[in-house]
């Protein structure tokens, strides 16, 4: 930011507000745009975090004019806004809402878009700055990017910035992600590419860094001397909904393991960054991702499953193969559990168990550090029968918070030790004021702060971990599990073979 005498680093009340700019959304009629992006834009405006000169441009095939689009955007924003609805805020925003219709292969439409953007530079005072949000299937990336290149929309100059926001999936394996990265980077410079992993926009994930690096209490035990194993769980109670076509090709490992879970692993296992800058944090994460190892015998340490018909939350739900749009003999996994190692001095010998699944009993994402048992207990065996491993659990969602589980004496005249947990809860009450991940990430894009966005080398390193798994699983049939259970029996056996068991989140 260029020097402004009113800015004072000690003045923490003043919000970070982006420079005047435009946000151009491709695929504005899609689910994500309606349910997340538009509400996030409104919430940012309502919190006074959008620049004074701001324009929102939607691009899609529908034949709308600005007014019709503004109406749709208003409804979408109103329906899902987190902050209270204030009509005057929206009216102000609506003044800068524009729509360009056309298909992605239509040169005229893109010329019209480029021209519109150029007009807005003067009339809306956006100063040429623009972020392009590709809320479209990756198959359409090449054509859109080529169009942007052709019209010169993607070029950052010293006078203006142009950024692009890409949603997952970032490819389907290492070669395809390399291809995609090469394509995006050839049109935009790598610093101008923002890959959204919305998990990184969550408060608890950022708090993980604070917990680890702002305290003295945890870091001394945050290593293989004290940690027995790490369990990272991402459970969803929902099925695949209307995403059958996408999910059939993708499966749980590519859908969430490759990005969300590996990012959580990287943040849990990384070394302390030299400072809290985008570059340094990404450097440390990349080191961890590159240090991930798979066991030699994958059959004993990688399990995939597929849900069958069952009961969940008091309702009968169909099996995966019975979902609409799914092949009756589908071999796509809806559950994946893997044991990774992290080959560093800090983590040598500590297994990292990752699991992700759909139609599990409840929606929960958490990171659990399971500590070693005490090497010696001065109590008799019967005193400590109920004592388990100490655990430190970071709950990412829902009920964001941290739990510490340790043994405590049961009140009474005999010595009995039992596990109790101590809870720090961001709390239902407080989450109300904590911004939605998309809000935070969108703001960071407009500010040009890349701290919470994975770099393409991270994406590639993650695929390098997933690809051998996919190769191993290819052609095999997933283990069935009932909807409403914690995954297939084989996943439990995988841990039992090593004398451990999954935590029930």
């Amino acid at each position, binding site marked *: 930011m260029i*020097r402004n005498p009113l800015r004072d680093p000690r003045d923490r009340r003043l919000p970070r507000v982006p420079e005047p700019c435009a946000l151009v959304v491709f695929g504005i009629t899609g689910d994500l745009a309606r349910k997340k992006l538009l509400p996030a834009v409104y919430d940012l405006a309502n919190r006074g975090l959008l620049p004074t*000169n701001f324009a929102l441009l939607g691009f899609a095939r529908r034949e709308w004019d600005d007014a019709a689009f503004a109406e749709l955007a208003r409804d979408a924003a109103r329906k899902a806004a987190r902050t209270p609805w204030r009509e005057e805020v929206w009216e102000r925003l609506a003044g800068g809402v524009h729509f360009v219709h056309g298909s992605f292969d239509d040169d005229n439409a893109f010329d019209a878009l480029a021209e519109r953007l150029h007009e807005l530079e003067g009339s809306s005072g956006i100063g040429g700055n623009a972020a392009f949000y590709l809320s479209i299937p990756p198959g359409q990336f090449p054509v859109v990017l080529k169009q942007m290149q052709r019209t010169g929309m993607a070029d950052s100059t010293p006078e203006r910035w142009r950024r692009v926001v890409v949603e997952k999936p970032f490819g389907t394996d290492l070669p395809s992600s390399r291809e995609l990265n090469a394509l995006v980077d050839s049109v935009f410079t790598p610093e101008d590419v923002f890959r959204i992993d919305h998990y990184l926009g969550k408060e608890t994930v950022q708090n993980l860094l604070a917990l680890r690096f702002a305290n003295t209490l945890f870091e001394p035990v945050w290593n293989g001397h004290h940690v027995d194993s790490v369990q990272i769980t991402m459970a969803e109670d929902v099925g695949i909904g209307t995403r059958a076509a996408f999910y059939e090709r993708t499966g749980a490992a590519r859908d969430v393991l490759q990005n969300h879970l590996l990012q959580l692993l990287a943040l849990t296992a990384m070394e302390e960054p030299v400072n809290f800058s985008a570059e340094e944090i990404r450097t440390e994460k990349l080191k961890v991702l590159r240090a991930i190892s798979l066991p030699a015998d994958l059959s004993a340490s990688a399990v995939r499953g597929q849900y069958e018909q069952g009961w969940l939350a008091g309702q009968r739900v169909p099996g995966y193969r019975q979902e609409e749009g799914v092949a009756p003999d589908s071999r796509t996994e809806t559950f994946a559990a893997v044991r990774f190692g992290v080959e560093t001095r800090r983590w040598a010998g500590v297994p990292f168990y990752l699991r992700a699944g759909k139609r599990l009993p409840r929606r929960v994402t958490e990171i659990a550090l399971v500590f070693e048992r005490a090497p010696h207990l001065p109590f008799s065996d019967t005193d400590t029968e109920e004592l388990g491993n100490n655990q430190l659990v970071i709950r990412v969602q829902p009920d964001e918070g941290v739990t510490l589980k340790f043994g405590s004496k049961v009140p009474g005249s005999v010595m009995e030790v039992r596990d109790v947990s101590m809870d720090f809860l961001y709390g239902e009450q407080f989450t109300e004021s904590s911004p939605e991940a998309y809000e935070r990430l969108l703001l960071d894009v407009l500010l040009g702060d890349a701290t919470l966005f994975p770099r393409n080398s991270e994406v590639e390193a993650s695929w390098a971990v997933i690809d051998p798994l996919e190769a191993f699983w290819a052609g095999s049939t997933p283990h069935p599990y009932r909807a409403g259970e914690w995954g297939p029996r084989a996943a439990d056996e995988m841990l039992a073979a090593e004398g451990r068991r999954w935590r029930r989140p």
Partner: protein
Amino acid sequence: MAAAVTTLWDTNGTAVVKELAAQRRTGGAVLSGVALTLVVVADESRVEEAEEAAAHAAEMHPCRLLVVVRRQLDSPAPRLDAEVTIGGRLGPGEAVVMRMYGRLGLHAESVVLPLLAADAPVVAWWHAPPPERLATDALAVIADRRITDSSMGPDPVAALRTRAADYAPGDTDLAWTRSTPWRAALTSTVDSVAGRRGEAVRLLGGVVEGDPRRASARLLAGWLSARCDCAVDVVDSDRAAGPGGVDTVVLRLDRDEEVRVRADRRAGALITQPHRPDATVALPDRPLGDLLGEELRRLDPDEPYSEALAAATGVTGLAGRPAVREHEWFDPFQREDA
């Protein structure tokens, strides 16, 4: 969770502590993670308003809420009535409303001290005319941060001078909090000028048009003078100023440029700057609870406030003062007794 409310009539501090502990035992998990204790000093007439604001702020900042209402200081028999609630109308956390009668009001800290959350910061907020010297209220002495509201009294400008004379690091004022949206709008406008030029901007001067009798307008002008090292005055505006007392701010920049931010009376402001079309930003009047919530975000000394206060009142050396106050005994009846 159902709210638990217990009212204790004519009680004492020990009973209140016991009742709070009893409710904690039955209350469950809502109580974990208390970040601070908020002590609210309120007049009987403003208790409801203060409670509502504090409950709102408590949703953003988990805290234990202690409301102290001093009544009938001249009543011959000291008496304490207390209401202990958890997870009810006073927000998600623990709250105790205490009404103190008679000379107990001069010793409120004797009830409050054992109720403070262990080793958590203490914030005191006067939703009432604060004492001229905060040190005469023992609650100010135990608090790490003290929040007053200069805009409450009949003469806000005199109140600001009083606050400047009495200032110690850790003091803050809601009149200052009210200026934050204005300061944000001005800062981002200057950001946008700097962005357009591609180089630094210098402020040569400016003027705040509004109501010179309002504390927020004075502090805003004070802040601008402190930041640009030049005098910025508050002058009467041609129309009645809004609730904060600010109607328009004009900043003179180098290169003969000028920016102007003018309230549009629809919870927004119109921004005029060279080489750019006019734009509007949100500039809402925030409810008391939001203001309090902003204050609770940070508990370290607010240097920009002390500089703005110094510039607005002409009192110097604020930042160098010791952060700790020592209690000064003050008895409002002593003079009459003598």
